[in-house]
């Protein structure tokens, strides 16, 4: 009741301010008049009476301020006043405001962009119904390793057990796609259980998803396109439903387009389309994937069931199945147990390995924000110093100290808010930068980077924090001193602000130290990268073109693939501009995972080695020197004796210093151990991984071992690689347009992809370092210029007394460089701490690498010296006559 009244009366005062104020005015005036009249009755003169009343009862103005500032509406009102005043002050200095807002916006924007990416990659929950109740199943294998891949039958078992409200499966692979008679294109398709969309509670953007029949177990060739594939390949055609496409040459009908915000349950993965898994017992010769017997499994907990409880029940329910299942029993490393993990964020997928890089970047961005805040604080302090007189006047006419602090604070808050808004804009325009560093191989990494609520809160939080940091110090600083000093115009007052100057120096020292740590990080990663690049074993990698192709094994039998690939190599080799052409199953920097095998010499010695399956001419194409013996030739075909080429390390390990040529080794081929004759020895290279010293390696002959998805390698002579690439594509279309060719890139790009984690950190740290260094230079320049301006008189006197230009210059420059020295002295140990944390990400560089540290310190020194030099020069131009007359 009284609250209501208070609000009502407050509103009344706000809206009828003039009248209410007039009332109060008249009432108070009346009060004081009456008191004065009383005094006059006692015989005082009217002047004395007024004075006495003012002393006894308080003056009219002060009383008015006291009474007025008691109601809540007046608090609101002063905020409003502060806000308007703040806006006025900021718009009056557009230059200052722009620089300040941009500086801070860069800091906030960098943080927001990186946080947004990290959030999307690591922390975001899936955009599906009730993600908290989702769990993913993990297989614990015989050797105790965990794997996401489970026998599909497990899903059926879990459905029957009733532990979960529902269960889905998913798996994916490349498919040949064609539409309206187009040539084959490669797409990545996800095979999902028919209840996929219903389970996740997502409504397709177009259509209904899989038909009811399919959901009930009547399989039909239906396909749901992803939103982005629909945009890209079908031009967002709203009439695609019912159209027919071909996957591995089998016709499928489009029944839907998945919603825009749904990518997939695997973070970073956005398959082009989804098709329903076939029920057990059915299969389609065109695609083994449709009846895949392994899949990843996700389930939804029944309400009120915890994960631990569900895990115990699920494991128990599946034990019998796992023991009996033929598939699992005959597996080399069968599943023994089932774990249940929370699945609200989906599977981590390929992005998981960038976790460390992303976290490091989040940290580095934080350092950038600190530097920008320090810079801005320093700017505001400088400005507060020049505003001393204004503040003093305002204090003298009745503004309380808290009011002044609040005023300064409001200005900072306004600055911070503007910077936050600009920062968000920076974030959305640079959002893709980080993704651009990640390798886009035959499966693209895609992230939904539209900022979610968490990113917005994070940005808002940073903005508030920055506002507090940049506002509090200058506000307290400028009102902490005796303000009346500000009214005196003698020079004592203007040099009396030593506290502010010291504070600004401290801030600049902090900036120097922080930017040193950023630069040091960039320097170390840059050196690591240089080391890695130097380790690149292949000459002129930008002249080697890679084409991946995929003859679907369901459509092309081994013999046909062999003929096709031989034809490809033969015809590509004769194209103009092509020096060599050859095939490799994986090729350099390919995925090494399955490409390991044990080689046994005839004396029983065994070596685990990397391997690849290559065609004749690959060593020449890549530029791997043949040390001994010969390369494969077209005559080494399936009819002739099996041969292999080994690298020098393997030869050395198996045969010591003996000549390995002509020696026999046993190696697995298609599940059997086969005897091979060694026909050649090549130089050992970092074939699969630039980060590791070369392991032993050997090469099968493609004509004898049979490829699955070979990559065509083409070494270009003097011709333009792009021209050759288009020629190769054209020629390939002539040979067989039903085989998709995709992921065309140079060997250099592929090498860069393997360095993505280092490049990500190194490039962004360098950018951040450069930004911080610029801010330091600007800040230092500002500080020195200010100091020179304040010391004009002193410098004038020195010059008048005979100081040389050089002395003046070193006097000023030393003042600035001292700050830099202290900053470096503090920054070095801090940087050592920081870089030691990242030691694991460096390659062949010690985290305390003296060369890197010396280099970045030198760069820092040069830039800051320049920043001091300009004001120092200006100081030497001080004319003593002008300077001494100045005040």
């Amino acid at each position, binding site marked *: *009741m*009284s609250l209501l*009244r*208070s609000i009502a*009366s407050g509103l009344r005062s706000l809206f009828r301010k003039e009248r209410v104020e007039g*009332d*109060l005015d*008249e*009432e*108070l005036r*009346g*009060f*004081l*008049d*009456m*008191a004065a*009249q*009383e005094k006059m009755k006692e015989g005082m003169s009217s002047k004395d009476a007024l004075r006495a009343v003012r002393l*006894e*009862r*308080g003056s*009219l103005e*002060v*009383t008015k301020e*006291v*009474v007025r500032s*008691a*109601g809540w509406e007046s608090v609101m009102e002063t905020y409003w006043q502060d806000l308007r005043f703040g806006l006025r002050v900021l718009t009056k200095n557009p230059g200052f405001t722009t620089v300040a807002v941009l500086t801070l916006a860069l800091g906030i924007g960098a943080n927001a962009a990186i946080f947004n990416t990290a959030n999307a990659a690591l922390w975001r929950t899936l955009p599906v119904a009730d993600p908290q109740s989702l769990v993913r199943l993990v297989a614990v294998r015989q050797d105790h390793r965990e794997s996401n891949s489970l026998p599909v039958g497990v899903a059926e078992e879990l459905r029957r057990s009733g532990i979960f409200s529902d269960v889905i499966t998913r798996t994916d692979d490349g498919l040949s796609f064609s539409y309206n008679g187009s040539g084959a294109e490669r797409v990545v398709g996800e095979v999902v259980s028919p209840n996929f969309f219903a389970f996740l509670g997502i409504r397709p953007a177009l259509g209904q998803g899989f038909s009811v029949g399919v959901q009930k177990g009547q399989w039909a060739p239906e396909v749901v396109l992803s939103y982005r594939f629909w945009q890209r390949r079908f031009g967002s055609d709203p009439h695609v439903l019912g159209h027919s496409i071909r996957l591995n040459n089998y016709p499928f009908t489009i029944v839907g387009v998945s919603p825009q915000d749904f990518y997939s349950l695997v973070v970073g993965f956005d398959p082009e389309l989804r098709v329903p898994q076939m029920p057990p017992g059915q299969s389609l010769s065109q695609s083994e994937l449709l009846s895949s017997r392994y899949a990843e499994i996700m389930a939804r907990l029944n309400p009120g069931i915890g994960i631990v409880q569900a895990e115990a029940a699920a494991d128990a329910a599946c034990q019998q199945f796992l023991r009996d299942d033929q598939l699992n029993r005959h597996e080399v490393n069968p599943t023994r147990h089932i774990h249940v993990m929370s699945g609200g964020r989906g599977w981590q997928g390929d992005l998981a390995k960038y976790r460390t890089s992303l976290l490091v970047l989040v940290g580095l961005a934080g350092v950038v924000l600190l530097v920008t805040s320090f810079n801005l604080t320093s700017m505001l302090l400088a400005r507060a110093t020049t505003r001393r007189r204004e503040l003093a006047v305002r204090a003298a006419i009745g503004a309380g100290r808290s009011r002044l602090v609040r005023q300064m604070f409001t200005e900072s808050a306004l600055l911070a808010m503007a910077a936050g808004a600009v920062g968000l804009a920076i974030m959305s325009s640079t959002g893709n930068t980080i993704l651009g560093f990640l390798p886009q191989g035959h499966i693209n990494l895609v992230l939904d980077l539209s900022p979610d609520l968490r990113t917005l809160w994070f940005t808002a939080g940073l903005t508030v924090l920055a506002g507090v940091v940049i506002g509090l110090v200058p506000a307290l600083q400028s009102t902490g001193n005796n303000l009346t000093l500000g009214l005196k115009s003698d020079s004592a007052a203007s040099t009396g602000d030593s506290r502010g100057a010291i504070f600004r120096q401290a801030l600049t020292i902090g900036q120097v130290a922080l930017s040193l740590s950023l630069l040091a990080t960039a320097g170390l990663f840059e050196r690591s990268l240089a080391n890695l690049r130097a380790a690149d074993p292949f000459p002129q990698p930008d002249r080697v073109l890679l084409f991946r192709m995929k003859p679907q094994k369901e459509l092309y039998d081994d013999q046909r693939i062999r003929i096709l690939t031989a034809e490809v190599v033969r015809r590509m080799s004769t194209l103009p501009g092509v020096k060599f052409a050859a095939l490799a199953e994986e090729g350099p920097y390919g995925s090494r995972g399955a490409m390991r095998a044990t080689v046994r010499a005839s004396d029983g010695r065994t070596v685990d080695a990397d391997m690849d399956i290559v065609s004749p001419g690959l060593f020449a194409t890549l530029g791997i020197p043949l040390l001994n013996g010969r390369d494969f030739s077209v005559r080494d075909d399936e009819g002739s004796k099996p041969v292999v080429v080994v690298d020098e390390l393997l030869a050395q390990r198996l045969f010591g210093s003996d000549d390995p040529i002509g020696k026999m080794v046993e190696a697995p081929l298609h599940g059997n151990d086969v005897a091979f004759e060694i026909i050649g020895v090549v130089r050992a290279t970092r074939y699969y991984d630039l980060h590791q010293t070369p392991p032993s390696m050997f090469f099968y002959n493609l004509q004898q071992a049979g490829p699955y998805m070979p990559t065509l390698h083409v070494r270009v002579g003097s011709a333009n690689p792009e021209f050759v690439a288009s020629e190769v594509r054209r020629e390939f279309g002539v040979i067989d347009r039903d085989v998709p060719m995709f992921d065309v890139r140079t060997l250099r790009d592929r090498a860069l992809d393997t360095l993505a984690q280092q490049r990500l950190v190194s490039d962004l740290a360098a950018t951040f370092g450069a930004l911080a260094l610029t801010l330091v230079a600007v800040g230092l320049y500002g500080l020195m210029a200010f100091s020179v301006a304040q010391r004009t008189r002193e410098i004038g006197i020195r010059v008048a007394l005979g100081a040389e230009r050089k002395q003046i210059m070193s006097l000023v420059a030393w003042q600035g460089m001292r700050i830099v020295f202290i900053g470096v002295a503090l920054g070095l140990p801090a940087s050592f701490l920081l870089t030691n944390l990242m030691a694991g990400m460096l390659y062949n560089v010690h985290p305390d690498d003296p060369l890197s540290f010396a280099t970045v310190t030198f760069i820092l020194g040069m830039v800051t010296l320049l920043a001091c030099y300009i004001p120092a020069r200006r100081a030497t131009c001080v004319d003593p006559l002008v300077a001494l007359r100045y005040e």
Partner: protein
Amino acid sequence: MPDKPSDLVQGTLDMLILKTLALEPMHGYGISVRIEQMSKGVFRLNAGSLFLAIQRLERDGLIDGEWKATENSRRAKYYALTDQGRKRLSSETREWGRQVAAIARILEAS
């Protein structure tokens, strides 16, 4: 004046104003004079605290203000007790009595 005017016990000003207005409606200066007289000069109010209290009481609905002419034929805002104010005064008086008695007992205990 025998002594320097002393400060009011915290929170008692509202009660004193209510008490003053219980006799008859009065303007601000009248209230302050009356309190000064009744306290024999012990309490002297400055304008700030007086009007703060008046504003508070008016906002809480304990008193009601009305512009009227004074005997010296100038305008002044006269405040009168509302029913609610009357109730509040009697409850506060009772409470005050209890407290004073209690404090006195404590002080005389030794």
